[in-house]
C-alpha cells in the first residue's frame, strides 16, 4: 500500500514536471522558461526524496541538496543573463 502511494506521488511529480516542461517549451518569454526550470528542479528534489524512501536508502540524500544548489545557481545565472545580457560581470561599477 505504502509503495502504491509512493508510486502515485512519483507519477504526480512526473506530471508536474511535464507541465513545467510544457511551460519551458512554450515560453513565451525567457523568464517564463526559467521559472519553469526552477520548478522542475524543485520537483526533482521532491522526487529524489520519495525515491529514497521507496528504495529505503540514504545514498541519495546528497542528491537532494545538490539539486537545490544547482537549481539556485542556475536560476541566478539565468536571471543575470536576462537582466544584463552577461552572466558574470567584470565590474559592477561600470
Amino acid at each position: 500500500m505504502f509503495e502504491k502511494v509512493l508510486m502515485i506521488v512519483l507519477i504526480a511529480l512526473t506530471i508536474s514536471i511535464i507541465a513545467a516542461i510544457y511551460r519551458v517549451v512554450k515560453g513565451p518569454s525567457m523568464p517564463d522558461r526559467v521559472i519553469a526550470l526552477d520548478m522542475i528542479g524543485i520537483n526533482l528534489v521532491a522526487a529524489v526524496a520519495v525515491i529514497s524512501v521507496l528504495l529505503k536508502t540514504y545514498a541519495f540524500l546528497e542528491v537532494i541538496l545538490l539539486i537545490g544548489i544547482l537549481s539556485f545557481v542556475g536560476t541566478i545565472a539565468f536571471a543575470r543573463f536576462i537582466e544584463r545580457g552577461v552572466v558574470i560581470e567584470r565590474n559592477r561599477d561600470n
Partner: protein
Amino acid sequence: METLMALLIGVLFTIGTYLVLTKSLLRIILGTAIIGHGVHLLILTMGGLKSGGPPLLGVDTLSFTDSLPQALILTAIVINFAVTSLFLVLAFRTYQVLGTDDLNKLRGSEDE
C-alpha cells in the same frame, strides 16, 4: 529492462546521429551530447542493471550492482564534459571568427 534500455540507447544514437549530420554547429554539439548519454547508458546496461543496492558497503546487505561500469561511466562523464566544454568554446569561437554557424560554409580548401 536491458532490452528496453537497448532500444532506448538505439533511439538516442539515432537521434544523436541525425543531429550530428545537420549543418548547424549547435545542433551538432547537441547531437554529440545525446550520443554521449547513449554511450553512458550503454556501459551501465552492459554491466547488468539493478541487481542490487547502491555500491556502498554496509548500506544494504543485498547483492551489489556491478560497480566497475559505474566507475568507468564516471570517468567517461568527466572526460566527455571536458571535451564538450572545449568543443563548445571552439564552436562559438568558430562562429565568431568565421561569421557563420552553417557547416556547409565551413568547407575546407580541399578543392583548390
